[in-house]
């Protein structure tokens, strides 16, 4: 369906291999006693999977930065409505930043939607229309109630900086689907980077090649260094063309004199790929060929939704063009402009939710309509939930105790639900899942056994899932 290269092995078949035999000898001349070492490369007969057949080839993750209030969106709690205003002792003297207030029901109207009758509040009218396509994890939990560690955890499986993001692990495990674009791309909120800035997208100790490329479609320069600075007048299209030719010639002559070093060959190839990327990236970001209807569906015509909608539409174009893992962020770091609604849920939440709701629903519908549900996974996440009681008069403080995540697309049992929180939405009650389980499930769908995708760093075989993680089979098709 899509014009991308399915696996690296296919690519090998197509090109007949690239580098010299000595490089190969140099590399495979190793022996290793660790029999748990994974297979050599993703397998064609696994549909590109690494350890078992893959259902998913590409992933888009929608990350709601700041901690979405579960009891104001998807987690319907009659008990909370009934006991609104009551003071309940949860056995803590302090939430993350405040003293616990009294119970607060959602200020928004609850309704059931779709065949599944899923409860959704009025702040997410568009997502309410797609609930039958979604599988909900209703009892996600975090190990922390603090944004920085929480974001790191959801992105890397660890609460500390310096660990590889899920996209980096996937790039490392499966490689790329296309030559023309990176494997892992991040589209931050147009207002700014999330908590932890670029730390959330790092390749950590994995090779730099797996780090996310951050694209800012609304910035004057969406991808740094894609083109020469305009101030350099001596650089013209002709000087570029001739210059790259000259560079290639000099490098090949150098290689002849220094045979058998695959790094030298790889560097030559890297300039050829760079040239391809210079062509592909602007085409990717050019939305002029998308129909008016598409623009409207994603909300590009309205100020509140246009920035996030644009990123969602570009995400779809990336997936179509073979980007393996796209992460789209709603919400910047800092005290506002995100889902971190400490002060005023009735006012703050509708604003941020209104900016993301329509584009997200549009993306899901668009992918489905284009047949991309066949091999594309959509994940909607946040770093933690919020408290059932008030902070100040109508705000809510951080709560790692329980929150909601949903998935859709390939390999997902549409309309399924797993786990539930307690009567107040304070802690998980059953079917608790952590980021480890979510990550294990995503890797599983990609044909990766999360326990076998490892990288040795500072004396430890590191995994995305640390020493945890179970595939959540309840939501798999």
């Amino acid at each position: 369906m899509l014009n991308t290269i399915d696996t690296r092995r296919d690519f090998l078949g197509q090109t007949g291999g690239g580098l010299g035999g000595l490089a190969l000898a140099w590399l495979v001349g190793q022996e290793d006693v660790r029999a748990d070492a994974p297979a050599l490369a993703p397998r064609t007969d696994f549909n590109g999977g690494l350890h078992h057949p893959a259902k998913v080839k590409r992933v888009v993750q929608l990350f709601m930065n700041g901690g979405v209030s579960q009891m104001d969106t998807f987690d319907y709690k009659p008990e909370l409505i009934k006991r609104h205003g009551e003071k309940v002792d949860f056995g803590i003297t302090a939430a993350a930043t405040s003293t616990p207030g009294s119970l607060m029901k959602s200020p928004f109207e609850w309704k059931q939607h779709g065949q599944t009758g899923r409860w959704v509040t009025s702040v997410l009218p568009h997502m309410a229309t797609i609930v039958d396509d979604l599988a909900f994890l209703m009892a996600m939990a975090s190990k922390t109630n603090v944004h920085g560690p929480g974001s790191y955890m959801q992105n890397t499986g660890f609460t500390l900086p310096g660990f590889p993001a899920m996209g980096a692990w996937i790039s490392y495990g499966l490689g790329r689907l296309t030559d023309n674009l990176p494997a892992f791309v991040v589209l931050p909120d147009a207002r700014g980077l999330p908590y932890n800035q670029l730390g959330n997208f790092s390749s950590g100790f994995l090779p730099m090649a797996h780090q996310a490329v951050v694209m800012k479609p609304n910035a004057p320069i969406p991808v740094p260094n894609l083109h020469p600075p305009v101030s350099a007048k001596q650089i013209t299209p002709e000087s570029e063309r001739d210059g790259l030719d000259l560079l290639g010639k000099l490098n090949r002559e150098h290689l002849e004199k220094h045979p058998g070093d695959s790094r030298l060959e790889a560097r030559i190839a890297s300039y050829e790929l760079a040239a391809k990327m210079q062509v592909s990236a602007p085409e990717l970001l050019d939305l002029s060929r998308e129909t008016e209807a598409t623009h409207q569906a994603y909300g590009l015509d309205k100020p509140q939704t246009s920035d996030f909608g644009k990123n969602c539409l570009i995400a779809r174009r990336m997936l179509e063009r073979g980007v393996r893992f796209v992460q789209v962020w709603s919400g910047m770091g800092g005290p506002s402009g995100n889902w971190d609604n400490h002060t005023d849920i009735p006012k703050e939440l509708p604003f941020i939710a209104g900016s993301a709701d329509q584009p997200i629903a549009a993306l899901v519908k668009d992918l489905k309509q284009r047949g991309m549900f066949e091999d594309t996974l959509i994940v909607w996440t946040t770093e933690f939930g919020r408290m059932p009681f008030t902070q100040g008069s109508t705000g809510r403080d951080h709560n790692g105790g329980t929150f909601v995540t949903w998935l859709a697309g390939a390999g997902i049992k549409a309309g399924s639900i797993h786990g539930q929180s307690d009567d107040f939405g304070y802690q998980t009650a059953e079917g608790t899942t952590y980021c480890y389980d979510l990550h294990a499930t995503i890797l599983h769908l990609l044909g990766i056994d999360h326990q076998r995708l490892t990288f040795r760093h500072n004396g430890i075989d590191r995994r995305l899932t640390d020493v945890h993680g179970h595939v959540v089979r309840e939501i798999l098709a």
Partner: protein
Amino acid sequence: MRRWLMSLGVGTALLLPAIWCWSEDAIAPSNPTGSPDSKSVNFERDVQPILVSRCQTCHGRETQKAGLRLDRREAAVAELKSGERAIVAGNPDESELLRRVASTDADERMPPKGEPLSAAQVETLRRWIVSGAEWPDHWAYRPLRKPEPPRFASPDDEAWCRTPIDRFVLTKLREHGLTPSAPAEKRILLRRTFFDLTGLPPTPEDVAAFLADGSPDAFERVVDRLLASPRYGERWARHWMDVVHFAETHGHDQDRPRDHAWPYRDYLIRSFNDGKPYARFVAEQIAGDILHPNDAWATAATGFLAAGPWDESSLRDIRDDTLDREIARSLDRDDIVTSVVSTFASTTVHCARCHDHKFDPITQQDYFALQAVFAATDKGNRAVDFDPQAAARRRQLTEWKSGLAGRQTSRDPSLLDAALQAEVAAWGQATKESATQWQTLDPVEFKAAEGSTLTKQLDGSLLASGQRPEKDTYTIVARTELPNITAVRLEVLTDDSLPMKGPGRQDNGNLHLNEFVVKQAPGGDVAAAKPVAIESASADFNQEAWTIAHAIDGNAGTAWGVFPKVGQPHRAVFRLKEPIRRGDEAHATLVIELQQTHGRGHLIGRPKLSITSASNPAESDTLPTAIVDILKLAPADRTEAQRIELTVFYLGQKWDRELASLPKPQLVYSGSNQFQPDGGFKPSPKPRPIHVLKRGDVRNPLEPATPGTVSCLPDLANRFTIDNADDEGARRVALAKWMTDPRNGLTWRSIVNRVWHYHFGRGLVDTPNDFGLMGSPPSHPELLDWLAVTLQEQGGSLKQLHRLIVTSAVYQQSSGNADFRFPNAELKDSNDSTSIRQSEIGNRQSTDSDNRFLWRMNRQRLDAESIRDAVLQVSGKLDLKMAGPSVRQFNMSPGIHVTPNVDYLNFNVDDVSNHRRSVYRFLFRSLPDPLMDSLDCPDGSQLTPVRSASVTALQALALLNDKLIVRQSEHIAERIVREQPDPTRQVPHLYRLVLGREPSPAEADAVGAYVALHGLANGCRVLLNSNEFVFVD
């Protein structure tokens, strides 16, 4: 794992070169475990890896299925429950282990999961058992000894060896039937050595001079010159910064810049340049502040402990009674422990945080013993005097001050010394005189903005009552006939109606005055009142970190408080910059605002205002009540106790004034408990209690941990004897002593391996931070030990070690695959030379294709800093200024929260700060420089014992298009035109500058033609992107 990585290397290299990566971390030793060589089986190299990876999960220290333990010999050879023995030395047929691993019966075969052992692996085990199942102690824990460098029968081999290093390396090569490579060309050797020792290329003049120098010691003299150059310290400090994950922001969500982290970087550069003995270098970084309290640089050294990230949200901002705070503290200590032990002892102690180490003999108790060493250590800004005179004086005054209380208690007679008493008396008299001049202000109008009720009292004070709002601002209007006013006094009085009797209205009696504003209303027009500048403020008491200075700093986020001294009145005096003058008016009208907007009801209960015309009014009226009472007595009426109290007070004040007048100390971001509290983040005066934590979880404390270290070194005590349990410094000193003990083989092997790693691109142990069972065994164990002991013998001099390494024949080899060294000229010129060459190349590929045994030098890609610095040197723009605060090569503006906006793209590329060496760049953890990032410069989030050297399309784009590279290409072009006006000679000059050589005629033609069409700057840019520039042979 390794195979996996290699496979990725293959996959990506073959298929998608753009993401191909050569990670040195990833390269397995050429360890033909599967194909036993003709030599004897080596336990560590061949057998142990099989036991560790395939057996010990079920038969190790944690789990012993069927009672079998395969992590130590006595257990492995013991009789099992079944009556069998897994290993019977010398008898393979009796060894149950061998039968089970070779079994074809799926129910019997071991290991039960995964692929069976390969035939070669089984054969390795068999031959090991046949040969006696020798099981030596782990190499890294063995006591150090100095092996004798081997000698050779062949005169040719003897002739090749320049240093003892060569003897060890050549022995290994000969063992494997390998031959060294020819020496590198002089030009190549020079470029290699320059980059290696200084991180900069040789200039064309350096090249010419070296090529022209035919003397036998020409190279040695170059080496000495480079080691003496300040550039050396800059280069090697940067390596160390990788190892210790140094950067200059917190690295978490709130990625606050650390303005005072740079002294540690300067410490490193100085230490390398000064040739600091390694033991001292280690000890200073762990406990320099305690060991050498009079050497400010030794305190800067403890910047090491604070090099890593810090979670400001969790450690400072959230409530300190949360579990998140406690978890963050434990994890921050883990960062310190991990850094210390990984860096100095190459040991993975952090694996034992949640459970005993799975493979190495390290217990969870050991791990928490190390946490206990750092039980009071936090990361913060500490004041240090780099000016030795100021340091000495500050030390003396501080010491005197701290002795005062004791002198008062013991009634030290010297306090009653006549001269001193005369001084006190004179001061007391002066103070008394100035104390009489306050005039109470009578409020004529007063209001509270947020609803407090103020009622005027008989004494002119205002009593607040009624509703207690969260915040409030009192505005008071008063008139005075005083012709000029030099200061305003605020008294906060107690009252029975106030909580705790006040002086504040908060439940605990405290108040928060965040701003004190004095305005003068011309002509009595209150609406037109203008603020008057306040010069300084003092108070009789300041709550810790809530000083009166906060009430005049214009920052509503800070305030004056008086906790815990509540239930008593307090006073503050505000001195005006210029006196308020009444002028011709009958009255001066003052409007005074008491802003108390800090929140939570921290309001003043009963304020009273007065003014003075005294020229030096401050001190007199902020004296504690007790002192005022003593002063009221005539000197003769004072008791001895009162005289002593007065003297003690006087001296304390006097010394405080002098302390304040000393040059401002430099702040150093470092690890200690000697820092100013910052909001909710406070130093711990004594070690916090540390417990062993079940599964590393702070909610599950087990027994208390006492300070100590790992127990894998039999010669050294692993728990420390600390005389005073509260002395946090003594704990770090004990660890520093353990670490630098000459018997600590880990430390000395670790450093020589690191140095070797940077010279050769790969260590003798290629896991420089892991000398445990899961790490790689050394390729040359005897050489490693010889180097370690030699370093000790040479007083821990790293410069001597460098000299030894770079002057070796091994180091000076060619890096080519086929630069075979013929033992003699006849052979080289013989008819057989081609076939000899072919067979030798084949042998190298089949035996040691990745050059583990060093039959050639490794070609290395330049690191990010070297590329950047080399470009600047070539353009002539490199600024060699050393030291000082880091240069921010980005535009920085306040962000929406703590993390600032950091803009690299729009930074002025010609800003002079761009021309400093890369080691002086400000290192922003979560927002790294895109060019440096693309070239694998680590961001300091994790320890980086080995940098990867990736090759990516984005890196290509960065080297082509980054503003700095493009701009410097233009500067290089300008330089060439300036130095070589003749266009026909410009391309050769370009080659000399960028690549250090003459172009071939073909190159000169090709580049010349391009330059003629598109200009020199474009030509420069092409060469800066060439493989020849980016790699060092």
